[in-house]
């Protein structure tokens, strides 16, 4: 396999060449990808918010933002600036400590999960052995923040919204984890890198899309529910609960919830792309194309092109899924809370268990196709 570009090694090499001591150079490297990812996630949110405005406008036959920058591309920036300059109000009878901590606990795990999102063979912050499980574990912390925000607001709508959000998260976490488990079973590894590796080599035909059609639907439904996107945005159902746990929030604390929900949506799209759509692999295998042209794979310019193509591919797939999520939001009505819980526990959970069982059986029967 082509090892691709090792940015870490080259940056450390450059640093040591510049006269930085050998044991200090890796320490200087550590914050670089973290900051890069933080910035990328925030910019990704701006793009997602702009897309949301434009797609919703198109769905409703409007124009959408038009004059704030070319094609209204600066509208999300204006939103963000407005939120930053708003007065930060803490309700008089709220619990100030928990009220402040709540949004932070919702946002931090989502950003931490970006540690395991791969954009290329070596283009990942850490290739953790527990990879995808890390994301599932961190996602389970979010309901605590929601409950905290709902409770601290001292508002019955907020409390109900927080309880609903937590109930929704824990119910849909289980089908999500089982769908991921089926993939893990086929890849023989929890690492996101290995999951993409296992899908590589045959272009679009090798992706898990074909081997896990049921798991794909379960994952997408559960991911939408985890992100509280419409049709599953029960916690903020405005005609029932005003704005759920966000009711009392304003300024940047509300901004954190808003940011967190979009970052989470992009994260889910990225991981969907990694799990089912071959991550950074192109629909036509690049190594096959390179072999066709007859250039050795470890030529520097080929490596640069492959790496950039990988990043572009991952982002393209993720934003395609994001577009789908936005389109769903503006075309599908909201479900009721009992329908939501019925769907989660009585339909998705048994189906995902059967899917897991079927994957195990297929893995034993056809070890060639199902990663034996």
């Amino acid at each position, binding site marked *: 396999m082509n090892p691709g570009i090792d940015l870490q090694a080259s940056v450390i090499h450059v640093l040591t060449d510049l006269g930085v001591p050998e*044991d200090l150079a890796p320490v200087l490297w550590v914050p670089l990808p973290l900051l890069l990812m933080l910035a990328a996630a925030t910019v990704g949110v701006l793009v997602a918010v702009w897309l949301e405005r434009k797609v919703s406008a198109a769905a409703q036959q409007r124009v959408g933002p038009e004059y704030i920058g070319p094609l209204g591309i600066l509208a999300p920036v204006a939103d963000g600036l407005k939120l930053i300059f708003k007065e930060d109000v803490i309700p008089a009878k709220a619990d100030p400590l*928990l009220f402040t901590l709540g949004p932070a606990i919702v946002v931090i795990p989502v950003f931490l999960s970006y540690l395991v999102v791969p954009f290329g063979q070596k283009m990942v912050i850490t290739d953790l052995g527990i990879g995808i499980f890390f994301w599932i574990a961190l*996602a*389970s*912390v979010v*309901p*605590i923040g929601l409950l905290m925000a709902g409770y601290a607001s001292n508002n019955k709508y907020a409390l109900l919204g*927080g309880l609903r959000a937590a109930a929704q998260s824990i119910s849909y976490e289980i089908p999500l984890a089982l769908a991921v488990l089926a993939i893990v079973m086929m890849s023989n590894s929890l690492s996101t890198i290995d999951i993409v590796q296992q899908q590589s080599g045959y272009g679009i035909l090798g992706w898990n899309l074909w081997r896990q059609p049921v798991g794909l639907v379960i994952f997408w439904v559960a991911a939408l529910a985890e992100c509280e996107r419409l049709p599953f945005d029960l916690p903020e159902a405005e005609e029932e609960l005003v704005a759920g746990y966000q009711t009392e929030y304003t300024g940047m604390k509300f901004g954190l919830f808003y940011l967190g929900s979009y970052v989470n949506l992009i994260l889910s799209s990225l991981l969907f792309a990694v799990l089912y759509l071959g991550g950074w692999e192109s629909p036509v295998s690049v190594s096959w194309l390179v072999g066709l042209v007859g250039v050795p794979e470890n030529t520097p310019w080929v490596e640069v092109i492959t790496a950039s193509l990988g990043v572009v591919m991952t982002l393209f797939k993720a934003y395609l899924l994001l577009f789908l999520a936005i389109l769903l939001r503006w075309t599908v009505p909201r479900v009721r809370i009992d329908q939501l819980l019925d769907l989660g526990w009585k339909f998705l959970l048994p189906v995902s268990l059967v899917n897991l069982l079927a994957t195990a059986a297929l893995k034993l029967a056809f070890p060639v196709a199902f990663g034996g």
Partner: protein
Amino acid sequence: MNLAAGVQIVSFGLLAAIILVGALGVVLLPNIVFAAFLLGLVFIGMAGQYLLLNADFVAAAQVLIYVGAVNVLILFAIMLVNKKEDFTPLPRAWVRRGATALVCLGLFALMGTTIASTPWALDPAPTVSSSVATIGAHFFSDFLLPFELVSVLLLAALIGAVVLARRDYLPTVKEQETVFSLPERPRELITSDSK
């Protein structure tokens, strides 16, 4: 001491402090909601300690199960029954607290001496390439019986929950037939000849 070891020692100290302070808060705080949130913090701290011991899978499982499931359910239960109620202060409550503290300190001393007196076989940290595979191998060889027993325990809890949730297994209490009546005074009907 190199950098990695220093970071490890500092994080161990921080995590230990978080666990100790958090645990004391869980026990001592009068506000039950704060106690429940601090319990989550204690669980996170323990996950951090597992990470320091190279047990990444156990750490993630700790977060997933204890923080994501157990603690959320505890919070759920508290918030569903959270009735603002002022309890009447008990006379001589300090006797109970003192007794509890005594028992807890006794337990702590007992376990402390046990830990100190046991000759632990300390290997220089075994380098496990994949902790998941190691745990799986143990589950299906020398830890098979405990593993299966735990699954039986979970099954029992599952069946218990189903029995509790399905009311038709419970003995039904005959409810008295209530006669509904309007809280209004009976009024004379308006007749057309009243002038």
